[in-house]
Structures are given as structure tokens and as C-alpha cells.
């Protein structure tokens, strides 16, 4: 009996999962390419982490920036935007518009104190189930490393790195809220006004 190999310790249920953070990721897919890629990954039984939950839009061009902010606000740790490859859009060129919005959104969330890596863009054609699954696994790993979305992570910083909260507080932190910003959304004007 003494020759019996030592039994590996049985992992305690929950103990391991308590140390592993399981993020929740919202993925926006287009009806023609990336949603079909997800279908294909399913048909081919290609495995990927269960952390992503997909929403079907007709086109990545339908992605309203509000959708992404809404997902973060509702508790998503990351958002994945996916569509047809550039040049292969079912609607000819609308994924380029999604790309433009994506770039703008990444800067916006950064200004809101969210790491830009929490918003990811993945192109996948209808034939690329394996690729989509791989990208989901990659995004999941990256977000797992980032940890839970700790929003707010800090003060509101505008795209030029000016700390708007600090600037506001420098004005005396008026209880009635931020001062009216003349000149609208132009951050230069905003900063001038705050100074």
C-alpha cells in the first residue's frame, strides 16, 4: 500500500474560481459576417470562453456609441465590436464607419476613466469561426488580466490629457455642477473657459 502514488489534492470547488476573475463581455456582431462566424464556430464545435454575450446588429455601422457606454454602465467589463473585414462589408463600406466610431469611442472611454483595451475591435468573415473563437479567447484573457471594470477609475480626463475634474475643482467646485461650457464640445474652449 505504501507504494501507491500520492493522490493530487482535490481542488476545492469555489476556491479556484474565487481567485480567477471571470469578466462579462458584450460583443456586438453584424448579421452577415461576425454573427455568421459565431454560428460557424458553433456548428464546428470550436470552443471559446463563455464570458462573451453577443448582440446581433444588421451591420457594425449600426453601432450607436450609446450601446457601448450602456454596456459599461450596466456592468460589462469589456465590449467587443465585430464586423466584416474592411472591404468585405455586406453594406459595401459601412464597417469603415464603425471603425471611425470605434476609434473615437476608444478615446472617449479613456477620457471617462476606462482602459481603452476594454473596447476591442475584431474583424471576422462569415467563414472565420475559428478566428472569431480565437479572438474571443484573446479578448477574454486580456480583460481577465485587467481585472473588473473599476469605473470610475479616476477623474475625467479629456482627450488632450487635461484633468477636467481637477480643473473644475480649481474653480471652487461649485455645488451647482460644472460651469456652462461656451463653445460647445471643443475641449480647447472648455479648458479656456475653466481657466
Amino acid at each position, binding site marked *: 500500500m505504501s507504494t501507491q502514488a500520492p493522490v493530487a489534492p482535490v481542488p476545492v470547488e469555489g476556491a479556484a474560481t474565487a481567485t480567477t476573475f471571470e469578466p462579462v463581455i458584450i460583443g456586438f456582431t453584424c448579421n452577415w459576417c461576425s454573427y455568421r462566424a459565431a454560428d460557424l464556430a458553433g456548428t464546428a464545435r470550436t470552443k471559446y470562453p463563455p464570458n462573451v454575450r453577443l448582440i446581433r446588429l*444588421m451591420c457594425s455601422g449600426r453601432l450607436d456609441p450609446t450601446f457601448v457606454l450602456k454596456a459599461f454602465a450596466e456592468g460589462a467589463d469589456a465590449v467587443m465590436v465585430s464586423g466584416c473585414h474592411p472591404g468585405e462589408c455586406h453594406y459595401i463600406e459601412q464597417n469603415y464607419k464603425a471603425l471611425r466610431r470605434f476609434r473615437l469611442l476608444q478615446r472617449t472611454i479613456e477620457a471617462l476613466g476606462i482602459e481603452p483595451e476594454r473596447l476591442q475591435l475584431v474583424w471576422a468573415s462569415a467563414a472565420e469561426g475559428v478566428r472569431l473563437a480565437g479572438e474571443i479567447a484573446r479578448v477574454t484573457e486580456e480583460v481577465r488580466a485587467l481585472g473588473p471594470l473599476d469605473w470610475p477609475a479616476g477623474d475625467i480626463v479629456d482627450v488632450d490629457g487635461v484633468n477636467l475634474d481637477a480643473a473644475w475643482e480649481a474653480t471652487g467646485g461649485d455645488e451647482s455642477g460644472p460651469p456652462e461650457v461656451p463653445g460647445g464640445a471643443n475641449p480647447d474652449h472648455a479648458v479656456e473657459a475653466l481657466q
Partner: protein
Amino acid sequence: MSGNGHQPAEGEIRIGVYVCHCGSNIAGTVDVPEVARWAAEELKDQGVVIARDYRFMCSSPGQELVTDDIVNLGLNRIVVAACSPHLHENTFRTATARGGLNPYLCELVSIREQDSWVHTDKAAATAKAKAILAGGVERVRRNTPLEPITVDINPATLVVGGGIAGIQATLEIADAGFPVYLVEKDASIGGHMAQFDKTFPTLDCAACILTPRMVSAGTHPNVTLLTWSEVTHVDGFVGNFTATIRKKARYVDESLCTGCGICQEKCPKNVIDEVYEAGLGYRKAIYTPFDQAVPRIPVIDRENCTYFEKGTCKACEKFCEKDAIRFDQQDEEITIKVGNIILATGYDIFDARQIAQYGYGRLPNVFTSLEFERLSNSAGPTNGRVVLRDGVTEPKTVGIIHCVGSRDRNFNNYCSAICCMQSLKFAHLVKEHTGATVYDFYIDMRTAAKGYDEFYQRVLEEGTLFVRGKPAEVTEAGRLPGEEGKLIVQVEDTLTGRQRRIPVDMVVLSVGLQPRADAKEMAVRFGISCSFDGWAIEKHPKLDPVATMTEGVFIAGCVSGPKDIPASVSQGAAAAARVLGRIQQKQMNLEPIKATIDAESCSGCRICNALCPYNAITFDSAKAVSSINAAMCQGCGTCVAACPADAITGTGFTDEQVLAQIEGLLRVGADGEPLKRSSYPVAHHETIEEAVRA
């Protein structure tokens, strides 16, 4: 509604939830009864009045659960959690409609393709299924009844490309009694098939089987043949396309020309024919591509015509008895209205010069497959004599190399499908014409169609020597006895594991097929998708291979990938059948997924105008508002997302529906427990929406 049914109060939302086991496909990974139980309890406040699980929701009894519950329980929203909407959305919408509800009040959410089939951890998959189901429930609350849009179908059809696939499609539709416009960019229809000598595996003479079809298409009362023409612009939508066609100047009056051919005889200018004769033969500056051309009306090649070059000559005009030559003819634009379009634009061949080590273009006796077709063709430049580039010497040994540019990571990954059979045909023809020794270098022999493998056996028995291996090089640098003056094929024979140097007189490169050089521009012009290579993408590669994802635009033949003649003909006929079905119905229903602009809210900023690739949005300068043509709108929703005034609504995918679905999807965390919402002060979505809109 039956008397014992529950009548929902005004504004009350009553949702039925149905979770499918799909045998063990879903239930093997997802705890289906638990998901249904959870929905009944936790989503009660969302309006779920019944949540059932069933073994196969798509079966008749499964569908009856839905229809019966609508009647008996007064449901007014349905959520089915089962497979992908691309598979069964229509099934459950139809079942919903049978229960008396508008079909668009039903949502199908995928817990199979996106959950049970791709995950292994049952707890995590069950949690995800709950989230997906909650997303569907939140979304369906915001669904509104939609009515399909009905459009009339114009009975005329545009066929683009006059190769064998396009000709077949044209004849099928014309024979059924409907008008067809057949547009061909070259001077004659016939396509690549007209260049071939024999067709595998039957060795039918290509011209003998093709030309009767060409003549039928050219003379059919229902066919308007537009050769030397190109489609430059397409507007409209299924049933109602408007196509602009540029008829290039032929410099010949088509209404007068009889096709007698005297102009070609008298034209003093010989030009190397790079297209039809693959650079091996000559044509005149005024020419028809080949003798059996349809139509028989020649064109003047402006680049090479002496009159256009120097201002003198006019030999053709002098000898033309009908006075049909028109040197002042201009390109002409014509506009046609059609209901459906079939694209049969074919392929280009791989440029063998790209593989420098095979020496094509450098070593004279290396030929491409298309050149060999012309050499072996009795109507070709050598009258069917297989000879070396000097035009007289018959080869004693010939090497045929498969997979040139195909199955090659440096060029095209795909198999060009026709080259094995083409190579075997060449092996047979070389034997027949010259009696030479033939070496056939192949990677794998792919002869999978009716009669193909029998043909392979026949060529084996004829004594062709097969070497399994992809040649590394073709060189004229002989260094062993018997190699001088020869082309040496350096190859690893993978069956014996030995390097071999095989001296031959002639090498034929079986070049692959690739998408037309302008394939991507064409895809944009017709609003279809194509792969990264440039092959058109089918609506479904198996179940709908001749349709595209654009309603009313069909594809046939090699436009969607390499095919042999039988497959191209089948696709031509199949595309025609699809079009005829549409024409017979006279009308068709379109998905009501469209954008609409609320004129009251529209500020007239015109941001949306430039975003629409279909030009569906027009600006009314009198009222200073934009509006959308519903029939032209393809429903992508880009304008909906861009409108700063929130004046555009995208039916089927409204902001309310998507935002609600996000909320539902985030109802539970990865562990299935309620998810913590962000504590950020603007986390209430009303505030964010307002913030974004501001």
C-alpha cells in the same frame, strides 16, 4: 381568440418563453429546465407569464406549444431560446403568426451555436443561457408589429457575362418567355469555353457544343444581346433595378453590317491576339474574335488601326458593300430596367510569370494551359499542331505541371478544381497529336466527378508517366548527358523520396483560376460581398449557392469560385430558376428592416445623406428635411446610429430594443448571480443617452 383565452389588458405585456433541449445538443451542456424555471421566477416582472422547456421546439408539437399558448394564455410576445435565428427564425415567426400574433413579436435567441456547442462548463453555459434569454425577453418587450414591404418584380432580367454560365441562364429565362439583356464586355459571347479545343472527360469538341448555344442566345426573340458593352452603374433594388450600360464604339454600324468578313480580309494591319489566341496568333485591326463569333459584327481596335493612328487607310470602309464602317462612332450609354440580375462574369487565369522558377515568359518552350488549348485547337494558330515556340518542331517529351498558382501559400491557397482534369486532357491530347512521352507532375490527383476518374484511368493506360511531386524548378541549364538543349524539370518524387531531373522539350503549366482583376469593383457596383480573394460570396455556400445576400442579385459559374463546365452550366440554370420563380410571383415581400426619418425631429443637418452607400436618403431642400426611400434602404442602420437629432428609427433594431437587450444580457454575471452595475454617477442609461445626444 377563443372564449376561454386570457385577454391581455391594454398595454399589458404577456411573454411566453420556450427553452429548447435540441435533444442533447443544448441540454447536454445547459441545464435547460433550470433556465426555464429561472425565467418563470426571475423574469416575472418583465412580463413572462409562462416558461416551458421542450425537447425539440422546431418539431410540430413544439411549435404547437407556442400557437396554443398564444390562444389560451393571451400571450402577446414570444421568446424561443434554441438555435441560431439564421436557421429557425422563420419557423417560429410563422408559428407565432399561426397563433394570431404579428410574426415580428417573436424573438429567437441562440443558446446552441453561441452557448452549448462552444462551451464545456455546464454551470457557466447555464448562466450564459440565462443572460441570453433575459436579453431576448427585454428586447421582445420593445418589439412592435411590422408588416413586410411588397414590391413589384419587373419581368426583365440582366445577365452580365456571356460565357457558358451566362448563356445558359439567358436561354433558360428567354425560353420561359421573359426578356433578357445579355451584356458581354468582349466583342463576342462564348467566354473561355470558346477558346478550348476539347472538353474533359468526354472529349467533346468545345466549339461543337458551345456554338449552337451562342447562336440561340444571339437570335432568340426574347434576348437583347449587348456585346462590347459594360455595366457601369446599377441603381434600385430587387424587382426594380435600373442599370446603365456603356456600349463601346465598335466603329461599325450594327444595323447595316452583314458579317461578311470582307473588312477583316482587306485590313492590312496584323495584330498579335493577346486575348482569344493567348498571344500565339494574329488578328486584324478590324476583327471578330473567332469565326463562329456571335454576333458576327466586327469591332475596330482603335489602338492598332492605321486610320486612327495615321489618318489614312480606310481599307475596310472602301471594301464594305453595306457602307457600315463608322469611324466617327462614339460610346453610347443606354439605360435598362430589370427586376433581377445574374452575374456570370467568370475568372481570370493566374499569371504564370509570378512563379519565376518555372520560367514562363523567359524560357520559350514553357507554355500556359490556355496557350496549349490554342495549340491543340484545330481552329487555332497552328491548326491543331502541337509544336514548340518555333512553330515547326514537334516535342518528343512534354512535362505537364499541376497546381501552378493554386494550393500554394505564396499565391492562392485554394484548389482551382479544374486543373487536374485539364492536365489529364492535355496528356491525352499530346499523345494523340504527337505520340510524345508525357510526364505529369501532380501533388494530389483530384478527379471527383462523373466520368473523371475513368478518364484518369484511361490516361494512365495510355502510358502517361505520373510523378507525384511539385517541381521546384524548370531550367535550361543542363549539366548531365542528355540534358543539353532541353528543359529540365527538377522535382522530388515523393513516392520514391528521390530528387529527379527530367529533361523535356516542352513544359505546360496548368495555371489556376483567379477572380477577375476588377472583381471587387464589380462587387461594389452590384452591392454584393466578395471574399478577400475576390470571389463572390453566396447567400449560403451549400443551400443557396446561386443567390447573394443582396436580394435580386444572383451569381452563376466561376464568379463565386473555380468550377468546371458542368457545374457552371448547372449554376446558370439554377440562377435562372430562381429568377423565374421571382418573375412568376410578380411581387415579393421584403423584410421590413428599414430606417425611417421622423420629419418633425429632423434638423436637416444632412449628416446621414453622405453615409448611405445606396443613395436611399434624399434631402428635400424645400422642407429642409431628409427622407429615406424604403425600397432602396437595405437596413444597415448606420444612419440611425449617426443621427444627432435621434430622428431616424431603424425598425427591428431600434435603440430601445438594443439598449434593453444589453440590459437583459447583463442581468446575471458569469456565475449566474445578479451582476453588479457600475457605481459611476452617470451609469443610469437615461443620463448617458442624454449625455451622448447632447
